[in-house]
């Protein structure tokens, strides 16, 4: 059984966030759960790294945030990809898939 990872490499987390937001706009909690569900228990997103990563991507112009309301009326910040972010998401996806392929080639046979 795969072990749960509680540390995601910084660059990988950015790529995962961009990939998830490429599918739909999400708020922070939904984004974390989406990634964890997709990873089927092999990944634990730390909030200590998620929100700083989101804010850094926002600062870089890759994502934009808008305020909405949760069903109970509390304020909620929803993130979406910008045009630059869409390009960055494609680039990050290709880059990390290439890295995964390389690691599979290098480590997979042992």
């Amino acid at each position: 059984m795969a072990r749960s990872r509680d540390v995601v490499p910084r660059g990988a987390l950015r790529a995962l966030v961009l990939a998830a937001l490429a599918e739909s706009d999400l708020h922070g909690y939904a984004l974390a759960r989406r990634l964890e569900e997709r990873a089927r228990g092999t990944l634990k997103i730390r909030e200590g790294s998620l929100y700083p990563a989101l804010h850094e991507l926002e600062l870089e112009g890759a994502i934009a945030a808008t305020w909405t309301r949760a069903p109970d009326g509390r304020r909620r910040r929803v993130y979406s990809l910008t045009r630059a972010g869409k390009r960055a998401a494609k680039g990050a996806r290709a880059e990390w898939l290439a890295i995964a392929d390389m690691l599979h080639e290098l480590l997979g046979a042992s």
Partner: protein
Amino acid sequence: MRDDLERFVASLAIPADRKAIVLAELSDHATSAAEAAARDGLDPEAAARHALGNLEALRRSLEAVESSFRITRVHAVARGLVAGVLVAIVIDRLGWPMMGALGALVALAITAALAPPHALALLRSELRAPRVGGTVLRGLPIGPALAYAFTVMAAPFAIWIGMIVVRARAGTLVLDVPWSAYSVMGAVCLVLAVEGVRARRGAEA
């Protein structure tokens, strides 16, 4: 839980407007976790606390990132223009003492004093940004730190070129450019080159 969160966010060394955003976002996160736990028959309060994880780790990460929100690109360009004008005046108008090392030091001091807060951290963050495709080439989106760097480099030369043209029209054709005029451009280019290489190496690692 809400009180703890408010105390935690109030203690963060980040801009005041960002505290409101961080508090709203973390509150929503904790409440969402509590609601999910309640639906699953678990302890909502424990789930909310668990959802926020290690607050000290969160503090370090947030304080590193949030300080960059202190300044916009427009503010950075305005600071660059002010710095550039001051450098141009100091080197051109204050006579021979400003044409050598002293002038270079004063120009660099002005540039550093008017730079955006946490300019180096901001620059590093911008250099790590994903490349965006333009019509011809791919490149970095220009954030506040890069905007300041380019403005403070270009503004003095734009002013000096204007002054050369005005003086030439008045009949003065002698052109004497002190080496201190290149101090800001040289220093900024050096910082950009060093940090650019570091960012590239970091990305490759």
